[in-house]
């Protein structure tokens, strides 16, 4: 059947017009990237739950002095190892009970949240800052700088992170600050690798060449042309690094190499209460639960962010 090209054309334009009409209410601008990420992120219930718990933890940490019923270090001589309120012998003045020297467990946990989140934040900031700069240098200049930095990364990654952190603390002496420094150093290689990989991939692209041709200097190329396009994997790693930093700090505290008593650090609290594992389960159970919940929340959030930010997984 012969078709009439004129007719077909007019039909086509008519359907175009119809389509334009039907989508007239849709804005032509694509959504802001952050909006897009948020749309993907909220699809995962786990990620949302992680976000909610993390926000709650941050609020508790910030307002610790107002939220906590007691001081974290004041000792109540009349109540040693008092069980939680819902058990016989418990009282609502110390909802989660008291520890071996009569300190309110709930208050210590709340102030511990402050410490743990602070550790996470500081570790991520330190290792991110150093790792990104070294990764940029390595990926941008290549050559011998790249070889030296990457060999160092290989060596550091050959030593288990906790062992390396322990070694660093052994040199610096046990304290919370030294534990933070040690964990930050141990985490640097991950950020170097990620940054370098993204920089190498991005460097070959046209916009970088355009910027170079336009006369951008090395610093501008590295920090304002390349870096903003390498952030997605770094954000994911930073979130996951946050939780692993909290876990490592607790482990160091548990080994007696991190925060020192009476600091209400969760790992240190666990180490202090190990001997009461048979007689007073609550002093052992709650600090560990606090660590688990915090780490789990940030890991859920990190997983959700990875799914939302990774273009390969996008539908």
């Amino acid at each position, binding site marked *: 059947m012969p078709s009439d090209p004129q007719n077909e054309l007019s039909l086509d334009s008519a359907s175009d017009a119809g389509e334009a009409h039907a989508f007239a209410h849709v804005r032509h601008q694509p959504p802001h990237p952050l909006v897009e990420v948020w749309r993907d992120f909220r699809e995962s219930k786990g990620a949302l739950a992680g976000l909610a718990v993390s926000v709650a933890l941050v609020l508790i940490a910030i307002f610790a002095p107002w939220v906590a019923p007691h001081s974290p270090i004041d000792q109540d001589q009349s109540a040693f190892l008092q069980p939680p309120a819902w058990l016989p012998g418990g009282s609502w003045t110390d909802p989660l009970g008291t520890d071996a020297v009569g300190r309110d467990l709930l208050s210590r946990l709340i102030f511990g949240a402050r410490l743990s989140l602070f550790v996470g934040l500081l570790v991520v900031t330190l290792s991110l800052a150093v790792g990104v700069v070294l990764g940029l240098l390595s990926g941008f200049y290549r050559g011998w700088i790249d070889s030296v930095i990457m060999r160092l990364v290989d060596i550091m990654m050959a030593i288990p992170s906790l062992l390396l952190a*322990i*070694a660093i603390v052994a040199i610096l002496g046990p304290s919370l600050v030294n534990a933070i420094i040690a964990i930050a150093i141990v985490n640097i290689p991950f950020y170097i690798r990620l940054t370098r990989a993204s920089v190498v991939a991005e460097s070959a692209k046209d916009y970088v060449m355009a910027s170079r041709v336009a006369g951008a200097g090395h610093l501008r190329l590295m920090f304002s042309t390349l870096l903003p396009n390498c952030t997605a994997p770094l954000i994911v790693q930073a979130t996951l690094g946050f939780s692993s930093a909290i876990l490592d700090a607790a*482990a160091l505290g548990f080994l007696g190499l991190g925060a020192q008593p009476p600091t209400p650090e969760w790992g240190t609290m666990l180490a202090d209460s190990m001997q009461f594992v048979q007689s007073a389960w609550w002093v*052992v159970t709650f600090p560990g639960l606090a660590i*688990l919940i915090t780490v789990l929340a940030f890991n859920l959030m990190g997983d959700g962010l990875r799914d939302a930010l990774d273009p390969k997984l996008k539908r």
Partner: protein
Amino acid sequence: MTSFFLKRLALIIPALAGVSLLTFALVHLIPGDPITIMVGIRGLTPERHAEMLHQLGLDKPLWQQFLMYDWNALHGDLGRSIFTRQPVMTEFLQRFPATVELSLAAIVFAIVIGLPAGVLAAVKRGSWIDHTVMTASLTGYSMPIFWWALLLILLFSVQLGWTPVSGRLSAEYWITPHTGFMLIDTLRENDFDAFENALWHLILPAIVLGTIPLAVIARMTRSSMLEVLGDDYVRTARAKGAAPWRVILVHALRNALIPVVTVTGLQVGMLLTGAILTETIFSWPGIGQWMVQAINQRDYPVIQGGILLIACAIILVNFLVDLTYGLIDPRIRHPR
């Protein structure tokens, strides 16, 4: 295969040199008198002090000291412990089998549970099985294992009385160490009661140490299986009428295993890290407990030698894992 082997071998030499430089630097960064740090003797007369510095070669330039350190290390001489006066190497070799036994048990536990769980989650994608496996594995991955150990002790040792709380063997048994592996040594002596006892001692620490690798393996198996199950050759296998279990276990799993082998290999570092915590809690006489003791006693030769040996062990295992890829996947063996 030979050139593949040699190439990988060439890569580990700079890594070993770097690790030795790191452990060498570690001790030289400690503020204080080198004699006190390395030999543990204080209050020497200046003449005796200078003599000892000379004897130990600590008065030489740093680069000479480093070469000497490497030379000695290559000959198995890593100095002596300040406290026991035993050579570091001897102490390490005495304790290493205990850690290997524990780590092997942990990784077996992790693979035996993690691999089927991951396969099942991928095959039943989106079902309650998938959700349960994923939730459990993320929880396992986030677990502070020192706390997990205490919980398990509380339940199985204190409440139920099923497993012993600590150590490798109850005091009523005496087994002469031959291999250092308690399970093998007890069987060698045909002491089945002791074997059973050693097995019960091993269960809880192995579960604790295997928890994080289990979570990682389950997650990796799931995602790698999901990727492979969508491939054309799997569809072809199904279309030609292969049984469903055969498609999953023979066609898909074999190809899905490569990334799983990678992460399992990477778990070795994780296991040795975890061993530090697990051995401390269960009083397991391995290198983890040894290192923690050394750090608390500031026994620097042990710390230095221990870190060097552990790092070497990890580098060697990674090398073996690399070789395994070559065996599983011919594409890696013959790059184009």
